[in-house]
């Protein structure tokens, strides 16, 4: 129960790595603006609060919730629904919540395979081959842990989302800009963008912010990053290394290409794009410099893991969402 009259703020992590929380803290002194303008009522990484505290809140009483992490198990879904109920403006924060990010790569495998790998490594001491179970009876009673879904979902596949902030993590300068915007809205000096908008990102793709020289593309060979000394001035894709920049939303200031690494697509698809992987695939394939099927196949051998390459961040949010083995469970 807040007594200071400031609008309430919450941040929650579902299936995530914690990077989004760190990105928020990375706004440095700006965190003071957050503290000055909001009352933080629920933020597991930063303060102690229980789910029942959230359940006790009035519906819609939290003004702004930044929800990061993908929906991996029923607890994630439950809290997503709970926070949706209690929140006015729910933001899918970071790549996991937006499109699945790394957790969603689990959608390439059925659950039983994941368990096999996780619980039967060389260094795992599990002689009885135990896999975790959601319910287990012990003398003291029944204990339960969240049930894993066979398929990781994005936030908007379980609840209605108001805004999307992409990035893995969203860049701190973008977070700061969004916080500024919300503060301005609170003060009546600005309008919120239309519901469903992507915020904290640019209008184009990473190439827009990248300083490298770009020419007409004709690729005869795909190379892995460790196979080539990249020319720092020239477009990375032209050098045969797949850079997701052309298909990735701008807003990060092209940090990775500037630093000498190809963009891996963490800011998700460009505006109005239905499937990130499809856009990157079509662009990369279109500029393969060959018309002969055998030669094209040979060139494509230079992409050993296309699903991983083209859906690295976006699998759960893509059109097909997951592989057949994951949803079939076989």
């Amino acid at each position, binding site marked *: 129960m807040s007594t200071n009259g400031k609008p309430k703020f919450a941040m929650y992590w579902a299936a995530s790595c914690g990077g989004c929380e760190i990105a928020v803290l990375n706004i440095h002194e700006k965190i003071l603006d957050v503290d000055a303008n909001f009352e933080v009522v629920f933020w597991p990484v930063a303060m102690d609060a229980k789910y029942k505290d959230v359940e006790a809140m009035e519906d819609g009483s939290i003004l702004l919730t930044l929800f990061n992490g993908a929906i991996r198990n029923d607890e994630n879904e439950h809290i997503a629904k709970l926070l949706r109920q209690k929140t006015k403006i729910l933001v899918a924060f970071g790549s996991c919540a937006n499109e699945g990010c790394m957790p969603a790569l689990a959608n390439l495998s059925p659950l039983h395979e994941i368990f096999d790998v996780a619980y039967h490594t060389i260094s795992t001491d599990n002689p009885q081959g135990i896999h975790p179970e959601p319910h287990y009876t012990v003398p003291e009673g029944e204990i339960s842990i969240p049930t894993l879904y066979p398929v990781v979902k994005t936030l908007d596949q379980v609840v209605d989302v108001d805004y999307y902030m992409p990035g893995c993590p969203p860049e701190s300068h973008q977070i700061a800009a969004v916080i500024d915007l919300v503060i301005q809205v609170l003060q009546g000096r600005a309008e919120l963008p239309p519901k469903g908008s992507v915020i904290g990102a640019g209008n184009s*793709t990473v190439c827009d912010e990248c300083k490298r020289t*770009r020419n007409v593309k004709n690729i005869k060979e795909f190379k892995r990053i460790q196979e080539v000394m990249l020319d720092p001035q020239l477009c990375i894709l032209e050098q045969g290394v797949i850079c997701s920049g052309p298909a990735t939303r701008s807003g990060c200031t092209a940090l990775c290409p500037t630093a000498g690494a190809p963009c891996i697509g963490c800011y998700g698809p460009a505006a109005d794009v239905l499937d990130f992987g499809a856009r990157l695939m079509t662009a990369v394939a279109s*500029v393969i410099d060959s018309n002969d099927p055998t030669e094209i196949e040979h060139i494509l051998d230079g992409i050993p893991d296309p699903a991983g390459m083209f859906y690295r961040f976006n699998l759960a949010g893509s059109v097909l969402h997951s592989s057949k083995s994951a949803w079939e469970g076989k």
Partner: protein
Amino acid sequence: MSSDEHAPQERVGVYVCHCGTNIAGIVDVENVSKWAGEHLKSRGVVIARDYKFMCSSLGQELIEKDIKELGLTRVVVAACSPHLHEKTFRTATARGGLNPYFCELVSIREQVSWVHTDKAAATAKSKAVIAGGVERVLYHEALEPLHVPIHPATLIVGGGIAGISAALEIADAGFPVYMVEREPSIGGHMAQFDKTFPTMDCSACILTPKMVSVGTHPHVTMLSWSEVTKVDGYVGNFTVTVRKKPRYVNTELCTGCGICQEKCPKKVIDDIFEAGLSYRKVVYTPFPQAVPKYPVIDRENCTYFQKGTCKACEKFCPTNAIDFNQKEEYVTFPVGNIILATGFEPFDPRRIPQYGYGRLANVFTSLEFERLCNAAGPTQGKVVLRDGVTQPKAVGIIHCVGSRDRNYNNYCSVICCMQSLKFAHLVHERTGADVYNFYIDIRTAFKDYDEFYQRVLEEGTHFVRGKVAEVTDAAREPGEEGKLIVQVEDTLLGKQRRIPLDMVILSAGLEPRHDAKETAKLFGISCSSAGWYIEKHPKLDPVATLTEGIFLAGVAQGPKDIPACVAQGAAAAARVLGRIEQKEIELEPIRATVDADKCSGCRICNDLCPFTAISFHEDTMVSEINPALCQGCGTCVAACPAGAISGTGFSDKQVLAQLDGLLMLNVA
């Protein structure tokens, strides 16, 4: 994807055509139309009708009336193929007061009733097809055709009889023509022939007056010994770049007197005009009646260019027209339309080693035999063997060499039968030899052709129906020594025959130019699998191509005889003249556009356009599409990784909506 953003706003009319029993015989059209009215109501359908013949004026009036009275904003017609009646229904929609592009025609005839037998399945599929059309049409936009001005000049590529015919029609009508010919003179293959069938007119006699007309025509700019290197632009506004190869003769000064040719000390084999049967000088005009009359110097064989000596031509030229320093020159000019009349090359019978050409001396190709017969040719028109002296006593003419043959060219070359009959006639005329024609069929389909065949029959020609197995000089029986033996199955007799001859003429088929594909690419058209340029419609439009502003004439579009070449050249000219007369042309507004805000300048699209419609601006780091150059294929739309390129007529939203409809995802 399927959003309801449009459903409440649009008012869609659905019209299901019976097409007599063509559709109604298999598809339950009443059921389909009733279904559409009920189940697609939530998608915006306010009226669904079925009618016997939607393309009739009454059918079209249904559409017009409903638009006006029911306030329709979209129209879906389920009938025949859009290739037949899309325009019809679009025009009806326009008459009703809507933008014509708000009408979508989906095929339930060619794609459903004519190809499926299961009535229930066909009816179900028709519903899905209509649902697809309805979903799609919700995303249609009001489009306006582009209007493009037509430049009055025309480029004609190729100076053979077809090109000449086209040039004269256009130039005589008062409009400028650029004629580009890669040989030193116009005239093409027809200039090489002796007589033309069926009239036995002397080829040069009927051709050269036309050549002179073109060469002296005030409206024709003659660019011989030249080639087109670049074509930019689009219909009505092409920019053509031509490379004028150096003649090493200054055409301002040359009078065509021919002294240079006389005095030139070096001879080389003329393997182009004389088909390798005779010599020409290194400075030469290909034949005496050449137009233009200016000679060229064959640089590769010229003593001056190779060794630095001689220069006899320069010494003797009375007007100092020889210019060894002449460079190639590029000229660029605008034209509105282009006619391609680039002709053919003869099939090389060396590819059929069993016929012995190139190995057995007295096996001749048809072109060689033409030169032999030509009065200005290597033997002054005498039909003699390779020794230049001996008259043959028995001559064989083999039809279909390289044609109608899966091993070489599958098609019929059209003119070889008449040509072979012509040869038979000429041999009879000039020698007393026995003549054998070895044929599969006798194709003499046109005016006076079959009468000519009868005449050749009456001249005592022997006709053997059978495909010749081989021509050999290996004698097996008495009487075959020193002869060429044709081994053939006489199918009418049902026997194998060995016929000893002195001379064998191979009627070689016609083939596309060896660089036809490159030429096609240069002009933005395509070649068929046989290599001929593809016409817009094989029956109804043989002169246009699928690229606006590019037309075809002559054998380049497919084998044909001289009258057909002349007719087609004139037809292409008429089409061009019609365009010039109208001064502007309407283009379909199916185009792509780059949203400059979304474009990141990645340049992935830049090299994907064969029409060079996409350019990159270095200053704004954004790509842009020229709407007049864009042909609307949509490849760049599909390739853009940022989704920054959209295409009218086939936008993502439209296609995905149609997909939703076909999958029946939104049906109540």
